[in-house]
């Protein structure tokens, strides 16, 4: 089962990289892109009996390691079909 973990800086934390990317987009003419927040994306292939179990494991991994709770928050999506697709 695949869990996708999205790690981003908390809204209260200044993101100098995201700001720079936004400025670059403005230079390209995308004036309607108001803000950019840069983050990290992880794909975890988890041997789990249920999507709920996979989500629990991914949440633990995110809280303990993938994200630094001082500055980052995370969001998880579980895709129960992803592993089968990958094998095919």
């Amino acid at each position: 089962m695949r869990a996708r973990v999205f790690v981003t800086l908390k809204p209260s934390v200044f993101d100098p990289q995201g700001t720079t990317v936004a400025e670059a987009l403005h230079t390209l003419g995308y004036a309607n892109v108001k803000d950019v927040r840069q983050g990290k994306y992880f794909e975890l292939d988890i041997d789990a009996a249920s999507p709920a179990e996979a989500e629990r494991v991914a949440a633990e991994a995110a809280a303990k390691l993938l994200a630094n709770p001082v500055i980052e928050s995370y969001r998880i999506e579980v895709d129960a079909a992803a592993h089968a697709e990958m094998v095919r």
Partner: protein
Amino acid sequence: MKFAVVVFPGSNCDHDAQYATEHVLGQQAELIWHKDTSLRGADAVILPGGFAHGDYLRTGAIARFSPIMQDVKRFADAGGPVLGICNGFQVLLEAGMLPGAMLRNANLHFHCEHVHVRVEQTDTPFTRACSTVRPLKIPVAHGEGNYYAEPDVLARLEQNRQVVFRYVDTAGQATPAANPNGSLNNIAGICNEGRNVVGLMPHPERACELAVGSADGLVLFESAVRAVSEGACAISR
């Protein structure tokens, strides 16, 4: 006295720290590989600068799982003096031994230059011999030294006098222009509540002889020698 200098894969200031304490100060300094489990009776520990574990995931994020860190924590909990320099400071933050976190430098540049820092607290083992008047001229070399902490944590740090080093200009003023990385409150270094664990972004070990442009950093290591010889760090082994 004996310093232990922890060597992570990717540390690159370990030999500088050893040189400063051994050759310049005439003390013992033992390099200890991160997979070792014992600090071997050291009186003080230095987590050196560099790029431990390639800075993968986040700076310092993987180093906290290195086996030696268990003994470093034990040593710190027992009151032993621990100094984290640059990447070593980042490791202490990730390990939860100091509060807060590091962000990318505000202007995204890797800053490699001499800066001035004011020592604000002299009741830590690494600042005992310091003056709070004359700023120290020591170099920084980092891309992620933009210190961040939640507002309540920051307020507590200031209240408890845990901000040990602050970026200042040559006149000793903590101005935005003197801040190389965007750190909150111009913070260059802090200590824990017990005051025995100290972390700072600038590199005192790279400023220990006039031949390299400044010898201002030496006083941090002299402070540790004095603290240990005067029994200021009662380590309950």
